[in-house]
């Protein structure tokens, strides 16, 4: 179980004044669970991942996984961040845990083949398209079969078919290795298509204002009617979250969220199962 308790995270803004990025953020991720985090721009989604990933430890609070700071981590960034001087295969092997080199190599090749990159194992990343580079980054994230996978809008700015294929590959690999996943995105449809839960962050200082279980059967499609129904219901029940207006200061707490949801429901939200789910669990 991953437990995130961030009391405060500040960093200096452009003028050098302290900016409160996260405040009172509490989030748990069960073993093997896929949790998506959505929220308006600048609400601290990437900051949250950087803290959990150990890239930023300057905060008040604690992050633990089974009692210790998570070390067995895979991280996929917004950009592929491949080493341009290394071949595709070497990029994956770079982060492979020390051990039987031949076995790691075999595993990396199998993983890259599963990502449909078997023909470009020895190519440099500069020779690859954007989608292929993301697949290499995805293979790199899974090479150690990590206990925790952190993903920071990894499929942003890809065309829709490429992003869909990458999501399929991600789900395949996740189901195979059973990692806990914390997936940050600003695309609610993507979050609903991927996550077991979707957590909404308020505007800065970010905290979880809605924790929504997604009980749709897999495999899912971002454009499928069930996902679309849930999306529409959420739009109706929590317009302030989707409009990026939620904030701790504006009173977007449990009561407000429920009240706005009730109002929206009364104004004609679809009455499907998805509509019921859209109520979610308002955060602490």
């Amino acid at each position: 179980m991953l437990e995130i308790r961030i009391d405060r995270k500040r960093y200096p803004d452009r003028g050098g004044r302290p900016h409160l990025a996260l405040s009172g953020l509490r989030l748990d991720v069960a073993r093997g669970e896929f949790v998506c985090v959505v929220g308006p721009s600048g609400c601290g989604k990437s900051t949250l991942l950087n803290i959990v990933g150990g890239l930023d430890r300057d905060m008040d609070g604690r992050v633990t996984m089974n009692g210790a700071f998570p070390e067995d981590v895979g991280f996929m960034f917004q950009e592929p961040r491949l080493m341009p001087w290394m071949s595709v295969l070497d990029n994956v092997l770079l982060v492979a845990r020390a051990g039987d080199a031949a076995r790691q190599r075999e595993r990396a090749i199998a993983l890259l083949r599963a990502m449909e990159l078997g023909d470009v194992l020895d190519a440099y990343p500069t020779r690859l398209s954007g989608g292929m580079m993301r697949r290499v980054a995805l293979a790199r994230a899974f090479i150690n079969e990590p206990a925790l996978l952190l993903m920071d809008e990894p499929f942003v700015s890809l065309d829709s078919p490429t992003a869909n294929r990458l999501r399929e590959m991600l789900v395949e690999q996740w189901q195979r290795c059973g990692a806990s996943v914390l997936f940050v995105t600003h695309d609610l449809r993507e979050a609903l298509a991927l996550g077991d839960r979707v957590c909404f962050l308020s505007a800065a200082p970010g905290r979880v204002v809605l924790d929504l279980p997604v009980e749709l059967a897999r495999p899912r499609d971002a454009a499928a009617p069930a996902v679309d129904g849930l999306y529409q219901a959420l739009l109706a029940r929590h317009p302030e979250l989707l409009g990026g207006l939620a904030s701790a200061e504006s009173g977007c707490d449990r009561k407000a969220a429920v009240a706005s949801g009730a109002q929206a429901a009364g104004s004609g939200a679809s009455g499907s199962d998805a509509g019921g789910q859209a109520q979610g669990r308002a955060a602490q």
Partner: protein
Amino acid sequence: MSGKRTAAVESPVPMMARARGQAGQDASPPVAHPGRRDAWLRLASLGAFLLLWQLGAMVADSRTLPDPLTVFARIVDETVSLSLPGHLAVTLGRVAVAFAAAMLIGALLGMAMGRWRRLDAFFDAWLVLGLNIPALVTIILCYVWFGLNDWAAILAVAINKIPTVIVTVREGARAVDPKLLDVARAYRLSRRTTFLRVYLPQLVPYLMAAARSGLSLIWKIVLVVELLGRSEGVGFQLNVFFQFFDITGILAYTLAFAAVVLIVEAWLLRPLERRLTGWRA
């Protein structure tokens, strides 16, 4: 997640392969390879230089500017007598040691100054001073302070080169991509692996630039050092030739040594650079 697999899978972008494929289908006449064309141009350039030299020698007094054949014959004579190889070996040894010391110390200081802003602020004035002290001053001071010996000579050469290596490598260290270092941290790579496989490769273009400019600078300074205070080496020999107004000897030794440096550049440094930065092609 809809979207057919075939639609989502992009092809790699091997531009050269594509270009080759297109050329295979194309009926247009073959075009000379750019590398081969350049080789011809270089050869023509060398021929033009020799021709101009020959014309100059015909116009000038043969003692002031001997013709190329006379100089070449002198190189052969000096080689057969083993005088030229002996002096060349001594000078090359000094160049190698001074070059290695300057690269090592300069690279370490450059990396540190590029990495730590305060260290950079502290040493920046020293660096400016080092860049602006004339080589001759350093050489004289080293001979006065440490005596007329090989170590003083090598120290003087290294001191002259270290500041330029620092400046180049510092720029490289400042340009290191922090996002790639974040990858190393996120995956918990060891410090050693991070340095050798993530940090250092980003400095390679800067290190190679420092090495190539360093080699061309160092051998010139070594000659001055030898001329002023050593009793063997190409620089010493040039001084002897100067005393006797032996222009043929000066040209013979200079050309022989420049040829060796060019060979080191072409057979060692360039292939090494191609190997280390081949991914940029």
